[in-house]
């Protein structure tokens, strides 16, 4: 049963380039911040052991490239995700406006079972910047989250380590719930999406 099995939670971080996806991941896993992280190309991940509801789980946090040009890679990276984190920069309106397309694209490519219940978490990052630069109010962001099925919303600063831990605790919790639900609902999963993943790579 699942309680005895080692749990690996796969979390995907998506969002416009430069909103701080790599910084959030590194702040959470390594407790470090650098403003010199290069633009992520392709994808990478870090793992972290966390205690969720008295259960020790491993979070595998995937950091992806922010430019939509590379979304076709997503199939390979998104598969088997337990939670998707949508990140925007509260000082950049466009990065907020594209959240919807990031969400839709994820659901298409990851094709999770029960997409309407798939756990997302939204993070508005860079709240350490001066208030005058802020473009998206908390109210607006929360309204959008509510309209998308009550997505949990956090405002963070990866730079100042504000709210990062809390956000990822929720991410882990929701991911674990998803993982458990998947196990119960689909005790014998059949991979029907394996063909779609081949449309990019080697067909030989």
């Amino acid at each position: 049963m699942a309680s005895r099995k080692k749990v690996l939670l796969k979390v995907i971080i998506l969002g416009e380039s430069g909103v701080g996806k790599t910084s959030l991941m590194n702040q959470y896993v390594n407790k470090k911040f650098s403003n010199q992280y290069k633009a992520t190309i392709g994808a990478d991940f870090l793992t972290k052991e966390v205690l969720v509801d008295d259960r020790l789980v491993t979070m595998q946090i995937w950091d992806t490239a922010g430019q939509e040009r590379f979304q076709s890679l997503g199939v390979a990276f998104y598969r088997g995700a337990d939670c998707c984190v949508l990140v925007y920069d509260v000082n950049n309106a466009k990065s907020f406006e594209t959240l919807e397309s990031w969400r839709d694209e994820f659901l298409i490519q990851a094709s999770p079972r029960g997409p309407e219940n798939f756990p997302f978490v939204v993070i508005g990052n860079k709240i350490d910047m001066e208030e005058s630069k802020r473009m998206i109010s908390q109210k607006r962001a929360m309204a959008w989250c509510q309209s998308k099925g009550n997505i949990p919303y956090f405002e963070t600063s990866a730079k100042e380590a504000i709210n990062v831990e809390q956000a990822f605790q929720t991410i882990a919790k929701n991911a674990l719930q998803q993982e458990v639900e998947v196990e119960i609902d689909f005790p014998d999963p059949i991979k029907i999406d394996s063909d779609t993943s081949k449309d990019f790579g080697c067909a030989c």
Partner: protein
Amino acid sequence: MENDPLVAQMEDLELEQSNLFAQPKLLFTRPKVYVETSTNGKEGMPGFMSLIETTNYEHILSWTPEAAIPGLDQDSYVDISSEGEHDSSRFVAPPRTPEALRSRSFHPSDYAVSVPLQSIYSLLVYPPRIKDRQGSIIINLIGGESLPAFYFHDDGLSKGKGLPGTPPTWGGQDLLNHLEQLVEVVGSAIEPGVYLVNASRADKINHGAASPSLPASSPLLSGVQDHPLREDSLTGEHESLYPDISCINQSTSLSSIAAPALDTATSTATGPITVEGMRRRRSLTESSRSNSPGTGHRQFVSTTGSPSIGSPGSFSGRPRTPLPFENHIDPLVNTVKEMRWNILERFSQVARFSRDAATNILDHPITKQILPPHVQQRIQESEAAKRVMDDYDSARVYLAKWAATVADQSDKERREVQEMDRLRQGSSGTGSHPTRGRSGRRINDYEDEEGPLGAFNVLDLETECTMIHHTRTDPLSPMDWFSFFDDQGRLKVSEAHVREVVFRGGIEHDIRIEVWKFFLGIYPWDSTESERVALRVSKAEEYYALKREWFDDASVQEDEAFLEQKLRIEKDVHRTDRTISFFASETLPNFSGDFTGVGSNENLELLKDILLTYNVWAAKSPSDRAASTDKAPKSLPSDGSAAGAALSSPVEPNLLEGYVQGMSDLLAPVFAVMGDEVMGFWAFVGLMEKTKKNFYRDQVGMQSQLETLCKMIQVLDPKLYKHLEKCEALNLFFCFRWLLIWFKREFEWVDIMRLWEVLFSDHLSTQFQLFVAMAFQLFVAMAVLDKQRDVMIDHLQGFDEILKYVNDLSMTIDLEETLQNAEILYRRLEHVADKIEAKRRGQSANSDSGTEANPELPLTLRKLLKETPPSTCT
């Protein structure tokens, strides 16, 4: 029977003989030898100390608890010991264990211990004193371990057993006497009470114990024998007991290693002995001892008992010199330490068997062999330990890295040896090193593998290809470069020659600024110096005209699409190569204000301008570009074939659609080499001509490269291909970053310039850029994979693990080695093409119907090769 410690030990020792029915000889035994335990009160646990000769004529010192010996055999033990001068040839049946013993919760047999005499390093002898009637002996083993102290109680024995008129012999002395008959025992002049067993010459010297030839009944020993019970025998008499150390100095020729040790030894001989001093000597003697012959046997058979045995605490209160080996050896700790390495080592082999191996490591048979049951149990009880064992992902990636380091080290050593051989043989200095780039890999991998090409023998290929060499040499020097030109400054050697030279060695940095302009299409290969001067002027005009289109136009500046592009570029430029001094400084404020608050500098601002200007340039159709200046068409990269330009140009602008992440990575090195904005821009244009398909919206450039690389793996390394298939990693997305920006994130800055000029040179595979924009980078990728393939196959079990491992290779890859292997791999593919072609010809000559079964090299791979093998089909 199985439970009996003695028998078990015998079995261990005699496993090879398996002659369990032969009788071991009991040479000596002594009852009432006590070992301190936590449970047996003040006296400790009584047992028998014995010397045994196995059927293998090996001698074993053994201590067996009384409780572990059944009544019958105990009698025979006592019987022998009470004989005094016992018959050494008497056979003793191995003791048997009653069934009852098995059911006991407390196992005295846990304390049983036996060691081959060859594994004994020294004995610490503490004869009885008045206050302390039972003397003790501590046995130190070669490995540094110590057995627990054995206390020889004589009380119950001396009555009536000793001959009248002679003092009763102390049991420890008895043991020494018997030991002496089997091995050489010499006393240390420096450490009172220390007796070295089968000591090496160096040890003897260090201990001042070396005399030219010590007779079996040495004066040292007899001295102790004569006064075994005198209270001050250790402190008062040892000086007179031992020969003058200066005599030893004169009579012994000292090895250079032993000399300093002797200095230490003699200088401390009269002073107090410190633990630290002993440790120093110990390390010296150990190293010399381990080198001496005859100490090969280190087998230590022991049923490891409770950790409390022999722990320093148990000796507290005993007045004696601090023992050198006592403090730092806890046998259990030692064992556990060794086991940890064993586990890692074996685990690296286990890991390949199944993905679950790591999580189930504690259940694995190999683990059971390594870990004694009680340790296994302890690990299983410990949450922390379990977590470590469970962490399969990181454990495997960690092990993979570890294995790669080890393999790399041996590979380097092998290369060095080869290089030495080459130099010794004085082969010609053409730079054609007969280095087998791939000889570190396992040949036998190919035995059962068959590539997609069917019938030809891959093993043959592997053998044949060992003769393929790379041709790497020194970089092009300024002197050679200038010698390529005539008085007019026109190239007098062929373009192909320059390409080959740069392919083989790269370019010295000082002339990169010039040479790259040829390779990146700024200078035509047939230009003269004056033409190039004129070009520089017109290029500058053209550039600034392009820049003005966005820089001076307010409407463009306010355009939303432009602003969005500008923001994208600013974000990336400010995080591009900031560790390189050329881009590091913060002399200007960050005008964009958006990113991080880290200051900017002039070069960063120019990077932004160049990228924005490139957007303008790329958005123009080729005819528009030509209109802005007459010379533009001529300046297009000349190595793009005319057909290629005609086919691809009209659709380019729509596909590129502005700045894409990765472009700033490509621009930074060419801008740094060019050193100014104008030439930086045009060099970037030239580089983008080679790489722009990577950035197309439909990603067709990346897709075709990954597919081609995949086919290359399938042909050149079917086993790796199968492994990737199993890992669901055939999309090769872990190579995406490599190919998108030409390994920019994988190699150090200086290496990137070297790698790129090799790729610029396009010496191999020039013909089919249309299909695969440049091709040699695929062989570079193949070379990196080839280097890692054993580790990947052995250790990495899934797409995520491979991706993580490959990402973490960044900045650890040896460029020169990679380029050598890349060239060799190119030649291998060529070789495969030739072989296939030969086979096709042979088959089509024999029968026309067999064409279906003919092996065929995928078209994309054939296109990678410079000269397509002549086809017989048409």
